[in-house]
């Protein structure tokens, strides 16, 4: 049962991810990306981490992608044209990413883990345990990510002000 769910979610995630990059229309891309996030949220649910799953949906699908969509719609990017790239660029892109794919598959094939992994604590993904870990073991990274977000926020103001000031 869980395996079926796992594989169908994985297949969906991969299919949607491929559609994201192949869709010509940016709005479609964004919507497919939302679907990809949903499939990934499903994986979190399978791992008994409902909190992360829901936060994933709220943050990524509900906030970030809406803003994405917002920008794309405002910029009216729905023209189905893209600047043509030279052939050698495309070719080199294909070759390098093909190589990366090769290396990654080779690595994963070699590291097949035959031991069955059991989570030491299956409830680790629940809100309470997550909060405990976050605010005890990982307090400093948590606080520093606040600095990170503050930097990004100040940056947005900075760019806005630089533009407005001149």
């Amino acid at each position, binding site marked *: 049962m869980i395996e079926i769910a796992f594989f169908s979610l994985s297949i969906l995630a991969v299919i949607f991810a491929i559609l994201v990059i192949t869709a010509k229309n940016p709005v479609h891309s964004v919507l497919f990306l939302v679907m990809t996030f949903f499939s990934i949220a499903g994986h979190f649910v399978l791992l008994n981490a409902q909190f992360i799953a829901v936060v994933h949906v709220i943050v990524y699908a509900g906030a970030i992608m809406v803003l994405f969509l917002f920008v794309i719609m405002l910029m009216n990017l729905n023209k189905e044209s893209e600047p043509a790239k030279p052939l050698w660029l495309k070719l080199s892109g294909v070759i390098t990413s093909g190589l990366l794919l090769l290396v990654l598959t080779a*690595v*994963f094939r*070699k*590291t097949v883990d035959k031991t069955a992994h059991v989570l030491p604590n299956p409830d680790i993904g629940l809100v309470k345990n997550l909060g405990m870990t976050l605010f005890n073991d*990982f307090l400093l*990274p948590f606080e*520093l990510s606040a600095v990170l977000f503050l930097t990004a926020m100040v*940056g947005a103001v*900075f760019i806005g002000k630089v533009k407005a*000031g001149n």
Partner: protein
Amino acid sequence: MNYIYIFTGLGVVSLFLGLLEKEKLIKYLTGFVLLISLGIIFTLDEKGSYFNQMLLADDLVNPMLKVLLFLGLCHFILFYNTGEEFKLPTAEYTALFCFILVGAIVVTLEFNLVMLFLGIEIISIGLYIIAAGNIQDEKSREASLKYFLMGSFSTGIFLLGITFIYGVTGSFLLSDIKTVSSGIPEGSSPLLLLGTLLILSGLAFKASAVPFHFWTPDVYQGSPTHVTAFMATLVKASVLFAFIRLFNQAFLVTSQTWQNSLWLIIALTVTLGNVTALYQTSFKRMLAYSSIAHAGYMLMGVLVPEDPSYKSILFYALSYSLASLTLFGIYFLLEKKGKADALESFRGLAKQNPELAVLAAISLSSMIGLPPAAGFFAKLNIFTQAFINGYTLLVAIALITSLIGAFYYLRVIGLMFKMDNSVEKIHVGLPFRLIVWVQVILLIVFGIFPALIQ
């Protein structure tokens, strides 16, 4: 750790002061805090591990913190007026400056991959933004966007590497990674190997080593000069400090595999950086390629798996950063005079501004590695250590390329001392003059008494 609190707080305070439009106060406060914290760190050593070994301050990284804070102070005073000239919002600019400094400190003290990642992200995001400080200029926008796109890509690769390492070792802690991976025979865990290589490429991007250097010339050229100076000195130094910490503390066991890759990266970096710099006509672009080359030399220190490598990298980073800051500062003055971004702008500088010309000449000779300046011992240290550890071929390449590199530095010196009467005099402010002199004197002092640092 305390400096993280101090500078985060300073950033937030300056934002609030910006709300009250107390722009002068922000500047004085920032300078004051930088000075005070520099005073504190020279009297009190930072020691101990913080928050379950997220950060670890020990004798090895303490001098690095000192260097970072010192460079921060120098940079701040050198360019303290830039905000007004570029019409940048002072409060936000200062806040970003502080946050980037926080990121640099985190990266230097890092003892946990999570912290390394966060620190690098704080630095990068701050830089993406201030690189666009000159937003009317298309080049500045291009620089920012290019840096942002490529930087996020490299961050993704870096993160992938971290997950692989975590998958193998089950920990983010550097010492744990080392213990676990030392139990794994060499080459038997491709996942660990790939993780190491991905982290290596992610960091090499941030340190602008070939073949991950493509962003460097464009970004260095396009960004406002004070930002370029920041990237080339403080940020680059902190990334290299992170490099040595990470590879010395976590990956020693897998050494053979990543060392070969790093060897190749270094050889490519020093060659390509120096050779391409020869063809540049733009001064900033030339310094960009030179900074690529210097990153290559500094990375040679990472290959050496002993404690002295910390010191040699520190010494190199300090001498390179001092020289580089001086050069960028002087170039900044020329730029304010409306000179184009070209080597030709330096023509005849010695006629009207012999002081600046001499200072620039000393800095350039330090970059070449000529004896009276610190650059000589910096290179000597790194090269001898690499040589002792058996990297003969690499040292040979490094020596040849640094000889090639001497050409383009000498060309600038030659241009400066060509007499040209059309040059007008440049007024030099007092704080600027003070800092530039301090930097150059330090260069010479360290060049004569290198033991001061060791």
